[in-house]
């Protein structure tokens, strides 16, 4: 329904980095491409022969068959939920000119060491690994890898038995665990630090100061305030942050006694927003001013919702419009309509594709992370500021890693010094979320 294509699950291929060298496009682009272009399931695709022999498939004196894949090993895929066996082999030395290049590998499986073997999958030339996911837990399997060439093929020795099983701990994700622990640790530390009386410095956020001002303006003009919590459901953290900001705005409108309207695109957001606004009016000491019917559901349909909100805007002419949450293509429709009625507009979203439109058409925009910082800041609880500090430490970690990683990688590439190369490999591994 939303108009942005989902990002494919990123898998950065270790081997793929060694793939074809990018031509003119920046290496960075290539890096993204490699990150996004996931390899076919269960395969790791290392380098393709960069310079395939020019002569191929012409009648020649019978060439010796290709050398068999060496050191074939088959074992239960570690750190998984079972039903998978990983087959690995060493790339066979390819004698140049003898019978043409390798076309790839065929992986074969049997339940006995003597066969019969049946093909279970293909791997491209240069591959050194295949994950067979068509197996059952607790059964012993045997494998062999067949190197294929146009005119001949050679099977490896039989490897196995491998017995697939599920594991209890995913040790591949140690780095994720470590980074998670670090981030959570810093967040908790700073939250506790502030609880104990620490005072954090938080820089000025332009859109944030505009929030109070915008509420005041609507009150002066005696016109309503419109709050749009995005078009996603409560399963998006942006909506959660938006509703937290709504809580602050509702406390302010309760104090100023101005009208607040919240149309929602999801029933759950309506329910949560009602609870939040009710609590806000309660804590501001004005429970009787709370009007449930001003927070209402329109429709789940993205553009139906926009049609409804647009209609509200031109008829009720709110003086202030807030857009806080997850937005898609409707961002600009809302912001341009709001602009045409002369409303002051404050937007905040973590939807990178929609930021350009809010920045162009709104008076203030909370850009990406600023939305979350604002929700912590406006919550009215000092301890929540600790999380902003926690976010900063995360950024510092990322920035330092980028500086170190990029330096080490560049040096390793230029000097070719083995220890540096290993260090570079380690830095990349550390940030990799790919299952090894």
């Amino acid at each position, binding site marked *: 329904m939303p108009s942005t294509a989902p990002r494919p699950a990123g898998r950065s291929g270790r081997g793929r980095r060694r793939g074809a060298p990018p031509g003119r496009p920046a290496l960075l*682009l290539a890096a993204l491409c490699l990150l996004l272009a996931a390899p076919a399931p269960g395969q790791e695709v290392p380098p393709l022969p960069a310079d395939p022999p020019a002569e191929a498939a012409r009648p020649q004196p019978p060439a010796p068959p290709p050398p068999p894949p060496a050191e074939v090993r088959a074992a239960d895929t570690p750190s998984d939920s079972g039903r998978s066996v990983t087959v690995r082999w060493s790339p066979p030395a390819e004698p140049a000119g003898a019978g043409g290049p390798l076309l790839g590998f065929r992986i074969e499986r049997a339940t006995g060491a003597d066969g019969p073997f049946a093909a279970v999958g293909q791997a491209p030339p240069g591959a050194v690994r295949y994950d067979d996911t068509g197996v059952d837990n607790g059964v012993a399997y045997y494998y062999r890898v067949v190197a294929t060439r146009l005119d001949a093929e050679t099977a490896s020795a039989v490897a196995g038995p491998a017995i697939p099983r599920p594991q209890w701990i995913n040790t591949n994700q140690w780095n994720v665990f470590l980074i998670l622990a670090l981030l959570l640790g810093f967040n908790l530390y700073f939250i506790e630090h502030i609880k104990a009386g620490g005072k954090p410095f938080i820089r000025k956020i332009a859109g944030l100061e505009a929030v109070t001002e915008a509420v005041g303006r609507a009150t002066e003009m005696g016109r309503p305030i419109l709050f749009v919590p995005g078009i996603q459901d409560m*399963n998006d953290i942006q909506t959660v942050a938006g509703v937290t900001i709504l809580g602050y705005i509702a406390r302010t409108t309760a104090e100023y006694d101005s009208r607040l309207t919240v149309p929602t695109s999801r*029933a759950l957001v309506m329910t949560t927003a009602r609870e939040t606004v009710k609590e806000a009016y309660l804590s501001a000491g004005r429970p009787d001013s709370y009007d449930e019917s001003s927070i209402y559901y329109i429709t789940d349909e993205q553009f139906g919702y926009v049609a409804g909100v647009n209609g509200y805007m031109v008829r009720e002419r709110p003086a202030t419009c807030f857009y806080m949450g997850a937005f898609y293509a409707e961002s600009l429709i809302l912001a341009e309509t709001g602009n045409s009625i002369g409303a002051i507009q404050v937007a905040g979203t973590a939807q990178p594709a929609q930021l350009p439109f809010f920045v162009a058409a709104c008076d203030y925009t909370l850009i990406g992370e600023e939305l979350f910082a604002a929700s912590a800041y406006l919550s009215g609880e000092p301890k929540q500021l600790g999380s902003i500090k926690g976010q900063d430490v995360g950024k510092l970690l990322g920035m330092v890693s980028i500086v170190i990683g990029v330096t080490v990688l560049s040096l390793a590439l230029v000097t070719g010094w083995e220890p540096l190369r290993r260090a570079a490999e380690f830095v990349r591994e550390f940030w990799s979320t790919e299952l090894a």
Partner: protein
Amino acid sequence: MMRRTIPLFITAFVGSILVIAYFIPHPPFDQLREDFSIFFDIIAAVAFILGGGNLIRMHGNRVSRREKGYGYSLVTVIGFALVLVIGLTKMGNPDGFRNSSVTAAGSYFDLAYQYVFRPCAATMFALLAFYVASASFRAFRAKNVEASILLLVAFIILVGRTFVGAWLTAWLPPSLDFLTIPYLADKIMTVLNFAGNRAIMIGIALGIVSTSLKVIIGIDRSYLGSG
């Protein structure tokens, strides 16, 4: 007391289990994260009763009180009720109630989609073509350094998407290739736009991690009231 404690406990329990489950490949934990996304969908589907009910009540009230413009509310109520009935009963479905999908071609539900839902949604979406024009006319003015950068870049990209981009700078000698609009447009998209979006995404990810943590440990709970 209980009114707050139990919800806070539920959130903390569910949140931490789902975080931990990421590190446990063994069944049933391997499926837990997927299962819970489905649970969310189910609860959201149940919530349609609240949303739809509220819609009907709101517009129904306007009609029964004969408020100004109640005729429009009547349109909403009728449209809603009609589509709900033909959808839930699969009216007009070629293969009957049990054997056909609700969206089967030829069903009344499909007609409502084809001739009401789709033209409205597509046209609303298409209004963007007009709004990008009016927004760029208003916003892309060289008022200060930031606005000028915005203007210049948008201009290069816009021009670069048409044949004009290549024409404008075709006279440049090959040694100045790096000043041509197609080259600049390409570099802006592949290097700078890319870098900016990456920084934004990293920041957002950290914001989401922190906010999620606050929700799990129960200090972000505006729906329960602060303090």
